[in-house]
C-alpha cells in the first residue's frame, strides 16, 4: 500500500468519525429548535382542525384529545422517545402516520432531485467545458448571457410558462404532477419532467460558470501543457487531467445543491402540485402540525448532512491535497 493511499484512508476515517458524532448532535439541536419555534408562531392546531365556528372549549378539548396541551418539555421528550422507538406519531393535518407520509414524500423528493440532477450535471459540464475551450468567443458570451438571463427569471415564472405551453396548449403533461407511485414508471417520469427541468434551470447557470472557470484554469495550467506535449490524446488529456482538476471547486457546489434538491423545493413542488417533502413541511409549519414537521425536518436534515458528507468524501478521493481542518491544524 502506498503512502498516499494510507494517508487518504486515514483522512477518510477521521472524517467519518467526526461526522458520526456531529450529525446526531446537529439533528438533536435542530429538533429542539423546531419544537420550540413552532410554539412561537401564531396559530392553534385545534382551531385549524375544527375551523372558525368551533368554540374555544371545543378547540381546547380537541387539543387535549390530541395530546397538545401538556408542557413543552414533556411533549418533546415524549416525541423524541417515540421517534427513536420508531413511532413518529400521527399527522394532525393528514390523519396519517407521520413515518409513512414523510418516507413516501422523501422518496418523491429524492426521485425529483435526482432527475433534476441528472438533467443538470451533464448539461452544465458540457456547456461549461465548451465555454472554457471557446473562452472569449461569441458562443461563450452567448451561453453566459443566456444562462444568467434564465437564472434571473423566478422559478414560478419559468414554471407557469412551461405549464402553459406543455400542459394547456400541447397537453402532453398534466398540470398536477402527482403521478401514482405504483403506476407506470415512464408515465411517472413524464409528469416529473417539467418540475425537474425547472429545478435544474434554477442551478444551471452557477454550476456552468463553476465548470467553465475550473476547466479554464485547468487547461491553462502547466500540467495540462505537459500532458499535451508528451503526446496524450485530447480525450485522455480531458479525462485524466482536465475533468479531475476542473471539477474540484464544482463538487463543493454540487454537494450543497444535491442536499437542497433532495430536501425538496417548495416553489416547484407547489407550482406543479408535486408531492414532495418541501411542500409537506411548509404545510406542517403553517398548520402547526408539530409531529409531521419534526419528522420531516429530521429526515431533511439527515439527508442534507449526508449529502455534504458524501461531497467531502468525493473531495478526498478526487484530490489528495485535501486534508480538512483537523489534520491541517496539527
Amino acid at each position, binding site marked *: 500500500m502506498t503512502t498516499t493511499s494510507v494517508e487518504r484512508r486515514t483522512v477518510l476515517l477521521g472524517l467519518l468519525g467526526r461526522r458520526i458524532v456531529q450529525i446526531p448532535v446537529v439533528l438533536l439541536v435542530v429538533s429542539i429548535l423546531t419544537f420550540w419555534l413552532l410554539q412561537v408562531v401564531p396559530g392553534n392546531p385545534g*382551531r385549524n382542525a375544527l375551523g372558525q365556528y368551533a368554540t374555544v372549549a371545543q378547540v381546547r378539548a380537541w387539543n387535549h384529545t390530541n395530546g397538545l396541551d401538556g408542557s413543552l418539555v414533556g411533549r418533546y421528550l415524549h416525541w423524541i422517545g417515540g421517534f427513536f422507538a420508531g413511532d413518529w406519531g400521527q399527522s394532525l393535518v393528514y390523519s396519517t402516520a407521520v413515518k409513512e407520509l414523510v418516507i413516501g414524500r422523501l422518496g418523491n423528493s429524492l426521485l425529483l432531485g435526482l432527475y433534476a440532477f441528472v438533467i443538470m450535471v451533464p448539461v452544465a459540464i458540457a456547456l461549461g467545458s465548451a465555454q472554457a475551450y471557446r473562452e472569449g468567443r461569441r458562443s461563450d458570451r452567448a451561453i453566459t448571457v443566456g444562462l444568467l438571463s434564465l437564472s434571473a427569471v423566478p422559478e414560478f415564472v419559468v414554471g407557469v410558462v412551461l405549464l402553459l405551453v406543455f400542459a394547456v396548449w400541447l397537453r402532453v403533461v398534466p398540470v*398536477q404532477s402527482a403521478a401514482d407511485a405504483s403506476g407506470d414508471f415512464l408515465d411517472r417520469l413524464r409528469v416529473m419532467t417539467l418540475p425537474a427541468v425547472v429545478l435544474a434551470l434554477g442551478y444551471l447557470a452557477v454550476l456552468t460558470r463553476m465548470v467553465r472557470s475550473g476547466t479554464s484554469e485547468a487547461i491553462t495550467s502547466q500540467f495540462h501543457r505537459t500532458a499535451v506535449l508528451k503526446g496524450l490524446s485530447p480525450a485522455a488529456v480531458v479525462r485524466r487531467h482536465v475533468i479531475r482538476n476542473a471539477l474540484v471547486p464544482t463538487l463543493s457546489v454540487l454537494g450543497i445543491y444535491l442536499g437542497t434538491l433532495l430536501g425538496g423545493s417548495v416553489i416547484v413542488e407547489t407550482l406543479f402540485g408535486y408531492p414532495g417533502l418541501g411542500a409537506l413541511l411548509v404545510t406542517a409549519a403553517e398548520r402547526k402540525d408539530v409531529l409531521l414537521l419534526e419528522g420531516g425536518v429530521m429526515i431533511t436534515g439527515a439527508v442534507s448532512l449526508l449529502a455534504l458528507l458524501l461531497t467531502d468524501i468525493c473531495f478526498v478521493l478526487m484530490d489528495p491535497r485535501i486534508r480538512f481542518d483537523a489534520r491541517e491544524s496539527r
Partner: protein
Amino acid sequence: MITSRTRPRRATRIALAASVAALSVLLAACSSGGGSSSGSSSSASGGSYTLGLAEPTSTIDPETTGDYNAMYVVGLASEGLISQNSKGVLQPRLASSWKAASDGLSWTVTLRKNVKFSNGKALGAKDVVATFDSIAGKDSQSPGASSFQGILKSVAPGSTADTVVFSLDRPFSDFPYLLTGSNTTILPASYKAGTNWIKDPVGAGQFILEKYTPGQSVTYKKNPDYWDAKHVKLSAVTINFYADAQAQLLAFQSGEIDQVAYSPTVASTLKVADYRQTTPAYNKFDGIFLNVKQAPLDDVAVRQAIALAIDRKAIVKSVYAGQATVADDYLYFPNYAVQPDGVPQREQDLAKVKQLLGGKKVRFTITTLTDEKTLAEVVQQQLNAVPGFDVSIKILTSAQYYADGASTPWLNAPVTITNWAQRLPSQYVNLLYKTGAAWNASKYSNPALEKLSNQYDEAKTTAEKQTLADRIATIENTDTAVIVPAFATGSYVLQKTVKGTFSGPQDFPGGFDFRGISNSK
C-alpha cells in the same frame, strides 16, 4: 431578405421551437396512455368526473369538518337527512318526510326504507340518534353543535322503526333547515367521535371513498347500495388538490378537471360562453361588523353614514364579478322563504352621509383576513373618497385573525370583515346579534330583537312570519351593527362534456348531489 441582424433572431426562434418540439415528443413518448394522468377512464355509461379543490385545512371527518374542501371530501361519501336545492327549497334525502308536533316542540322525521351504509349495513333510527347525540352532545367537538344549542333538547327513536323524534327546547318552525347544516351527515351508531374516519370512510353517500392520498387526491367509485343509485350515472369521481385557484384554472384549461369555481379571474381568463355553467346559488355574505360599544361607532348616525357611503353595486361588480346580489343591512338571504317588506334598499347617498356625520371626522381601521382583502380595499377606497372618513386596513393571516383568546381580532377589533355561510335569519340573531353571543363581534345588544326572533321561530303561519320578519329587518337595518354589502352566490364553469344539471349547490346544504350528471370525456 435575410440580413445579418435577422439571422441570429431567426436561428434563436428555430432553436426554441425545436427545443419545445423535442421536449413535447419526448414527453408524449413517455406517456403510456396519452392525456392527463389524473382523469380516470370509465367503462360505465355515465363516465367519470374529476374536480379540483384546495387541500382541506380542517379535519376530514363528517362530524368535525370545518372548511369547504374537507366538507366536499366527506360530502360525496356521506349523506344527511335533508338538503336544499338551488332555490333553497328542502329536498328529502335519507329522510322521506318530516312533520312538526302541534305544539311545535318536536319534529318527527321518517327515514327512507332499505337505506344502507357503504359497508352494507342497514341505516336505521339508532344511527340517526347516535349521530345527533354526538354532534349536539355535551362533549361534542363538532362545529355544527352551535346550530343546535338552545334549540335541540334530545333525539330518540320514534314509535316505528323508521322514525326519529327530535325534541326541542322551544318551538322552531325552521328546524328542518338545521338538518341540512354542516356536520349533519349520518354515520353508523358504532362510529366513535374523534376516530380516524378517513381510514374507514363509511357513509351512505352517492360514492364510496376508495383512496385518499394526503395532499394529492381522493378517488371515489359509485355506491351501488345508494338509495337512489339508478340516478347516479357517474361511475367514479376524483378530487385533485391544487395549490391555488390559478392552478385549478390551468387544470381546467388543460382539460384535467371538469369544473372550476366561477370567480373574477375565471371570468377574465375564460370565454365562459364556450363552456357550461351551473345555476348560481347563494352561499355566503361578507359582513362588515361595527363595534357599537366603541367610539366613533357607538353613534348610530356614524354607522348609518358608513352604510350609506359605500357603493354596493360597484362592490358586486368589482369584488364578486357580478356573482352576488346587492344586499341591505339585515340578514335574510334572498332565497329564504320569507322576505322582509318595507325596508328601503340602501344606496350610496353622499348628501345623507354629510348630514349624518355633521362635520364629524370619522377615523377607524378595518381588520380582516387575507381572503377578504379585496373587499376591505374596495370599502376603504370608497369610504376615503367621501369627505369625513379616514379609513385604514389591517390584513391578518387566518391564524392571526381567528386566534384564540379573549382579545382575538375577529371578535374584538372595532371594525372587522368576516364571511359567514348561509344560515337561517334567527340563527344569525342568536349567533351575531344576541347579547353576549359567542360571535357577536359588534357587541350589539337589543332584547327587543331577540324577543322578536324567538317569536319568529315559534310562528306557524306565513302571515305571522312576514310581520315579524319586517320588524326584525327594520331593527337590524336601522341599528346597523352589521353592514351587508352583498349576498354572494357560487357557481361552477363546466366542461362541455359534462351533461345533466346539478339540482343544488355543491356545498353542505346542497348535499353534493351528483344525481343526473354524466361526463362524455
